[in-house]
């Protein structure tokens, strides 16, 4: 069964550094998402992406964050100047249609030191 893959599984970065989290969505999906889960808290929506532009974004997704689909397969989340509070598990998801179930990757655990 096709799946969403995320790399790396764990990323450790110094505060203030830039980090890029990578995702390969399911190949025929058109809608892409990023969510995060701070330890012990609920999963929170960050951003959705369709047709090479952001569809929706939450309050969390401020100027520090950006997303890109640099080629036909990858979908990336960039955090420009990381803060301690960015430490979380980041999940990528994709869906075939906007109102169809989203399929999640296994996540990238981001640790900011």
């Amino acid at each position: 069964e096709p799946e969403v893959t995320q790399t790396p599984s764990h990323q450790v970065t110094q505060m203030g550094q830039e980090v890029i989290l990578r995702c390969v969505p399911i190949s025929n999906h058109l809608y892409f998402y990023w969510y995060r889960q701070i330890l012990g808290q609920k999963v929170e929506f960050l951003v959705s992406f369709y047709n090479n532009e952001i569809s929706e974004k939450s309050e969390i997704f401020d100027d520090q964050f950006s997303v890109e689909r640099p080629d036909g397969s990858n979908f990336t989340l960039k955090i420009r100047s990381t803060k301690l509070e960015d430490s979380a598990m980041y999940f990528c998801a994709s869906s075939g249609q906007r109102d169809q179930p989203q399929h999640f990757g296994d996540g990238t655990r981001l640790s900011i030191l």
Partner: protein
Amino acid sequence: AQSVTQLDSQVPVFEEAPVELRCNYSSSVSVYLFWYVQYPNQGLQLLLKYLSGSTLVKGINGFEAEFNKSQTSFHLRKPSVHISDTAEYFCAVSDMNSGYALNFGKGTSLLVTP
């Protein structure tokens, strides 16, 4: 505004016993409802979904849920649990007003013991 409430943060249950994990939601428009499961150190796996049609939906691993519009609930049930069902369970809702972004509940930790 849309919201999701999972009333129980932890549910301990003995193996082969039935279980119900509760989820209530609020929304001003029609919603889509989902249950996801997260095993330790893994991602979110879709258990089942309600998009339209029959209010009783069946998912993987013997789980089912019933959409109750009048009570704005979508409780998850399994008649007989296994040790391997120990995991975190998340209820989620989406609607057109949110661009179909998923709004998750805080999760319920199901602990199955022998």
